[in-house]
């Protein structure tokens, strides 16, 4: 076991902690050697996936051949403000390059304009190019009021999202317990939850898992499974 038991307990039904983690590097300046290191770590710790920008999907796929580690690509990231057609094209290219999962950003501006038709069509168009693959929809909760979080969750789930995800890590804040509870309540069991942004240590990770979170997006995966606190400020 990588981790020690602390005051937070976790259920015997829980899958191993490392299998919750999307090992993530999304900063603009990430180099080829950063991606190589990310994939090496993901293999070593048997994380669920690596989460990278779409320009690095084919590299990551090559590095992770013949392993269980999946490749997750972000789309329309991090603003969510590109055209629907561009999100679809980026998704198709990422799938073509070997992505197993897609994390797209919801169109936050259209949500705030109450243009809900445009919001769900945006998500549905992406889901339509990957019917059997996992689509996560990032709500960027730091910019949303409660009613907007509820509405965004509903729109995403109705449009075929497999997961709703809290944050890009590039907004003004990351996941909060409060927002995750709200999303879990709306999702019921119709979609899974991914918490991301600010999940940096074992206790925080367990807290989210105990709320019913199925996946954690973090650049601190190693610290989490080894029971340390990461000083990584990125994600």
């Amino acid at each position, binding site marked *: 076991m990588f981790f020690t038991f602390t005051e937070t307990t976790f259920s015997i039904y829980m899958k191993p902690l490392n299998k919750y983690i999307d090992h993530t590097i*999304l*900063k*603009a*300046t*990430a*180099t*080829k*050697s*950063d991606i190589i290191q990310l994939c090496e770590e993901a293999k070593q710790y048997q994380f669920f996936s690596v989460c990278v*920008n*779409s*320009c*690095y*999907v084919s590299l990551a796929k090559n590095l992770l051949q013949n392993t269980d580690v999946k490749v997750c690509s972000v789309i329309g*990231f*991090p*603003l*969510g*403000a*590109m*055209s*629907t*057609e*561009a999100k679809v*094209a*980026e998704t198709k*290219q*990422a799938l073509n*390059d070997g992505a197993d999962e897609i994390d797209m*950003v919801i*169109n*936050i*501006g*259209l949500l*705030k*304009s109450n*243009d809900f038709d445009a919001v769900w069509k945006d998500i549905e168009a992406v889901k339509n190019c990957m019917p059997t693959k996992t689509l996560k929809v990032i709500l*960027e909760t730091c*910019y949303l*009021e*409660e*009613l907007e979080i509820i509405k965004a969750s509903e729109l995403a789930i109705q449009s075929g999202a497999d997961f709703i995800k809290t944050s890009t890590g*590039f*907004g003004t804040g990351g996941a909060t317990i*409060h927002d995750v509870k709200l999303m879990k309540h709306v999702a019921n069991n119709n979609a899974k939850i991914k918490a991301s942004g600010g999940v940096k240590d074992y206790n925080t990770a367990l807290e989210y898992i105990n709320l019913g979170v199925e996946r954690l997006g973090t650049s601190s995966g190693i610290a989490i499974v080894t029971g340390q606190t990461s000083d990584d400020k990125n994600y």
Partner: protein
Amino acid sequence: MDISRYIDYTLLKATTTEREIIDLCYQAKDQDFYSVCINPAYVALAKQLLENTNVKICTVVGFPLGASSTASKVYEAQKAIEDGANEIEMVMNLGFLKSKNYVSVLKDIIDVKMAIKKIPLKVILEISELNKNEIIKACNICIDAKADYIKTSSGFSKSGATLTATKIIKKTIRDAIKIQAFGDIKDIETSIKYIDAGVHRIGMAALFKTTRSIRLVS
């Protein structure tokens, strides 16, 4: 000196609403700015609002990280032009630049330029992330790729344009490419300093009061 024709009036934050785009276009018409610079999802709307005016529409691709795949940037640019964009700003792939994979940086830009043909292409360097040598290298790649403008910054990084970096860019590219500065440029005096340093276009962030109601439960 009338600087209004130097200005790209810019609103790129993720939370931008349709209402704010309407205000932005109205103000741009009123001030006779060169263009509005907006995210691709709003190009079609801005096109409608700015019909029969001088104000052009500029949009961004691969924004603001520059880390989307080349194919995605190409498609995003083509779709934006179809929707009515008059200028395209793309973010350079900074990760490839830092990996010294200059061929891929060049190809990323060339592919977009070839797809959009005569439409002006601006390449955002994100100078706050680059050292002097990287800025010079990036400028030379932009010359090779036949970009039309070099833009200093996306507005989403640690900091924006500086006069020092602008002078380095100008010295490297001379008259091969035009320069657009974007950053903390909010008044005429600062704008004129940049124009004197050789800048042809200035990105100016639109400022709207944002209202955010209180959360239901704290």
